[in-house]
């Protein structure tokens, strides 16, 4: 089954992957993406980051992305967890884990979900650097990554 969570507290990557991969002995492949906070961005040191989101819409947007992945590929479970609030370098920000009978579909669906999340789910990052706070700008490369999946 699919699972979507948006939470302030850290998540247990191992427990999520273990629950997903053990959910069926028909699963042959689990592909997991973990995005974590880097201590540098655009060349500047980043000491803390704060993630804002749009409660209610966030969950709906993630659900729509997960549903579309399920439509496009033959999958056996998708788990998405995204943190909000304050984060430190090395903190995991997001996890996308996809199970399937075969690896090709799990790889594609996992990359699809994170590519769509990056452009369609209402999260915003604000970085604290030694020079002060700043909102992170959207990346052109994320738009390109999303557009690869347009049918």
């Amino acid at each position: 089954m699919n699972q979507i969570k948006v939470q302030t507290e850290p998540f247990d990557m191992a427990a999520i992957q273990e629950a997903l991969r053990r959910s069926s002995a028909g699963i042959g492949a689990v592909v997991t993406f973990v995005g974590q906070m880097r201590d540098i961005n655009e060349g500047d040191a980043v000491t803390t980051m704060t993630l804002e989101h749009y409660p209610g819409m966030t969950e709906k947007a993630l659900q729509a992305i997960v549903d579309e992945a399920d439509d496009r590929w033959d999958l056996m479970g998708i788990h998405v967890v995204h943190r909000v609030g304050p984060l430190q370098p090395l903190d995991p920000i997001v996890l996308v884990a996809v199970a399937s009978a075969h690896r090709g579909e799990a790889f594609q669906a996992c990359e699809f979900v994170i590519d769509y999340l990056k452009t369609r789910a209402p999260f915003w990052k604000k970085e604290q650097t030694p020079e002060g706070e700043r909102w992170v700008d959207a990346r052109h490369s994320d738009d390109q990554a999303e557009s690869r999946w347009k049918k």
Partner: protein
Amino acid sequence: MINLRFFARLREELQTGSETMEYSSETQTVEAVVAQLKSRGGSWSDLFGDGQTVLVAVNQEMCDRDSSISDGDEVAFFPPVTGG
């Protein structure tokens, strides 16, 4: 009445996260609401002005500027997203 919401950089620069607006013949599309907000001057006209990328969601779904708005809708404005 429609419920406006502002997030991230917009929320900060407009110094408000939400407000209500009378539902009228002037608020029946996203474009019309944006025109009203822009007419307030100051940060409002800067942030909703030409060349600014502001995304819109109506009832928590991404929408275009020509999307229509009904009485009671939640209309949210925010910058391009940067999560993940």
